[in-house]
């Protein structure tokens, strides 16, 4: 064997080859983006505030020295745990978002073909994209190191915890990013990629392990701890929880000890496979593009394609933009892939129902709280993402200027976009309503909840849809708008309650503030509604339903009125956002 062939792998490992011009371009562009600085600032601010609040609530300067020291180290543990956890989630979400348009950008600006005619190869394209984004995320993680360093001074936080959690976070980030990058090769719109990746992660990290664990526990008689260890090997979420538990109660689980190193290796190996796939597919795509064949939008399933597409021209009816927005649905079942995923999702759902009936927990109200909460989260998430893309997508495709020179008024545009989002999110929301309807028919859920859930969903969507349209009218590109809207929703419904809890703790108000804040929170609403009217209570009459809502006992109609009031408040805030959006519409067209 010649020496040269032996050197081939090293050629690929040469740093300048790995990074290449794409990497440099990405770094240069990202250093010009205001959004990255805003993001870093917000991230750091949130972490610092959390740390300070916990610090103040945990460390009350009273009692003797020994007591104070022990509180100090407890505060240290709490802060570390929270920071590490926040970092774990935030870094993965960021990786997904940042890489969601990495390849599609090049594909749809038709630069991929051009890149391929230069000495750059697809390895460098993928590597450059990946490394540049990872570097930014690594930067964010580094920002938290000083905080953790200070906290460690309080004592009690073992080094190896920090090390392990950092490794787990990094490998999880790489995996999530690679997944997003892979999906972005075939999808033009960043939001589609984000949603698909999140669903995929949900499937991989929650649905499959849970299913596997159940099978092996029920049918294979595997011991729980063994199952847990195996799940931890491939599931960063599970491992992270185990690590956290170990932090507070050392020597408790023994799961993380068993396999965190292996876990990281596995994750890297999976990412490597995804990386290889990306290189191959990008190369194929680029060659196609260089030959001028961009329009191969994937294999269509003939049967569905002919029925859903057809040759018929549809006539415009009513207000044109409204017509245009309402005629498009979020997904058409026209490819094998969509068909399979729909079948898969429905299959999972039915399977979980089947299991529920076997294990007899379908008549528990907790079951329905969990289902409804999950569906609500999913619906709100999808709505949040969709709404933020409405106007930016017109800007990006440069069709907004043309629209603005017609006689369609700004309000009509805003209205059509709003209704369009409602229309497009119907499939997601139908999960929630179909679930409720089924179990109303089976008499596991009280029929009266349908109205309440509708009100809750209306209020929540009004808020995120209009804030999404607002961000979308304000910002230039879709990704920024989506990030902004997700942050907004997270702050309103998770950040504020958390802050209220901590402030309440601090100021000695106990739970009053927290309870006031969550009284307006749709996720708590749906939990309470299901708590009151599902399970064994489902068969009672309305009058018999001894309604406990949050802190009050308002009865059914009182509660419904309150929910309607909340929805009205959200709708009013929404209108405010829409008014602002209308003002922005003509300001930032190009």
């Amino acid at each position, binding site marked *: 064997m010649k020496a040269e062939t032996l050197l081939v792998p090293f050629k690929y490992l040469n740093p300048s080859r790995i990074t290449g011009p794409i990497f440099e371009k990405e770094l240069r562009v990202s250093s010009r983006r205001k959004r990255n600085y805003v993001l870093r600032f917000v991230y750091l601010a949130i972490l610092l505030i959390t740390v300070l609040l916990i610090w103040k609530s945990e460390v009350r300067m009273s009692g003797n020295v020994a007591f104070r020291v022990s509180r100090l180290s407890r505060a240290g543990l709490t802060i570390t745990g929270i920071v590490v956890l926040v970092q774990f989630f935030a870094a993965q979400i960021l990786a997904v978002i940042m890489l969601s348009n990495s390849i599609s950008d090049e594909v749809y600006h038709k630069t991929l073909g051009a890149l391929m005619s230069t000495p750059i190869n697809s390895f460098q394209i993928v590597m450059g994209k990946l490394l540049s984004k990872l570097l930014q995320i690594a930067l964010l993680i580094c920002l938290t190191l000083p905080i953790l360093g200070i906290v460690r001074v309080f004592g009690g936080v073992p080094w190896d915890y920090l090390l392990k959690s950092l490794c787990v976070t990094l490998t999880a980030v790489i995996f999530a990013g690679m997944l997003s990058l892979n999906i972005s090769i075939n999808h033009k719109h960043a939001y589609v990629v984000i949603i698909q990746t999140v669903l995929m992660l949900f499937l991989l990290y929650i649905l499959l392990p849970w299913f596997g664990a159940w099978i092996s526990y029920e049918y294979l008689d595997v011991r729980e701890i063994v199952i847990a260890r195996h799940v931890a090997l491939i599931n960063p979420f599970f491992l992270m929880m185990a690590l956290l538990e170990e932090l507070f109660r050392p020597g408790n689980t023994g799961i993380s000890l068993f396999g965190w190193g292996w876990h990281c290796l596995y994750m890297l190996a999976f990412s490597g496979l995804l990386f290889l796939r990306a290189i191959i597919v990008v190369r194929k795509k680029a060659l196609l593009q260089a030959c001028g064949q961009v329009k191969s939008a994937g294999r269509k399933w003939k049967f569905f394609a002919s029925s859903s597409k057809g040759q018929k021209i549809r006539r415009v009816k009513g207000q*044109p933009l409204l017509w245009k927005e309402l005629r498009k649905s979020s997904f058409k079942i026209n490819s094998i892939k969509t068909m399979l995923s729909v079948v898969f999702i429905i299959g999972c759902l039915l399977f979980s129902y089947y299991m529920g009936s076997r294990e007899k927990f379908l008549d528990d109200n907790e079951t329905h709280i969990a289902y409804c909460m999950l569906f609500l989260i999913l619906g709100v998430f999808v709505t949040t993402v969709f709404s933020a893309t409405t106007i930016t997508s*017109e800007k990006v495709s440069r069709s907004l200027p043309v629209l603005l020179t017609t006689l369609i008024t700004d309000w009509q545009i805003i209205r059509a976009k709003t209704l369009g989002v409602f229309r497009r999110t119907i499939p997601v929301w139908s999960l929630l309503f179909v679930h409720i309807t089924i179990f109303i028919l089976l008499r596991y859920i009280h029929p009266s909840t349908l109205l309440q859930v509708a009100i809750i969903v209306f209020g929540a969507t009004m808020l995120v849809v209009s804030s999404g349209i607002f961000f979308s009218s304000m910002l230039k590109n879709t990704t920024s708008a989506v990030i902004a809207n997700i942050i907004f929703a997270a702050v309103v419904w998770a950040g504020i309650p958390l802050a209220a809890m901590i402030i309440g703790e601090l100021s000695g108000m106990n739970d009053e503030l927290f309870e006031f804040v969550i009284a307006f929170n749709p996720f708590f609403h749906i939990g309470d509604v299901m708590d009151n009217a599902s399970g064994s209570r489902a068969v009672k009459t309305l009058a018999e339903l001894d309604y406990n809502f949050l802190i009050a006992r308002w009865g059914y109609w009182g509660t419904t009125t309150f929910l309607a009031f909340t929805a009205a408040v959200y709708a009013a805030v929404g209108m405010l956002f829409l008014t602002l959006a209308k003002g922005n519409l003509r300001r930032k067209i190009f």
Partner: protein
Amino acid sequence: MIEITNLTKCYGQLQALVDLNLNIGQGDIFGFIGPNGAGKTTTMRILATLLKPTSGKAFVDGKNVLKQGKDIRRVVGYMPDFMGVYDDLKVFEYLEFFAAAFDIPSKQRKSIVEGVLELTDLQGKKSAAVDSLSRGMQQRLGLARVLIHDPKVLILDEPASGLDPRARIEIRELLRELKKMGKTIMISSHILSELEEICDFIGIIEQGRLVFSGTMDEIWRKMGTHSKVHVTVVPEHREKAIELLNTVPEIVEVSDQGSHIVVDFSDGQVAGSVVAKILVNGNVDIVSIEPAKMKLDDAFLQLTKGMVH
């Protein structure tokens, strides 16, 4: 029809338009020329009410762009330099969509859409998806869209880019047709020879300033091209011809261009006849004498300094 006074537009520090003044009469075709980044698109966007000027005024059909946006949109058809198309509409649907957007009653829409499709030669693509069209086809679709509400004023930003030679000629014909219908057209282009043939007026803009505006004839006069004569003689007599021409007092400069001799007069009136007389008297065999015709491209090069900011 279009009136621009002291129009200024700044993007931060950059002055894209500086005190621009322009008047375009009803039924004129106005050609807007300038190097890249001169401010053509900016001007057109302001006229189409998409951009607010920093200062100055602009009127279209007597209506103020700042205050009467809606009225202007009714009479103006604006075709942007780069147009996005919706990816999920068919050609017919796309055009009908815009017909509806201009408040055209639904009964008339079908015939109007058919009409513009025919005008732009797109009938065959009626049920094709908009985003499957080629670049040139999309350009035609854009043109069809502009015509859909029968606007009095057309503002076309580089409508011919991406079109094949045949389509270019067709567009030219179309514009002539539209002119006959009494429409006012403002058109920008980099392909100057195209404007030469159809425009009544030309405006040359550079760095946001109008460096020239007027009719075609005025351009030629300004360039002084009428005082130049191209003389071609049989090769053996060339030396002698140059010698002879140099003796004439009205002639400022004689230069040998190889194939022909360029003769420059101080005042452009006598021109050809003087040259002919002298050369015939000196027994020089003349092949041809013709007044120099400068192409618009040359005028463009001469008037602008080729600075790009």
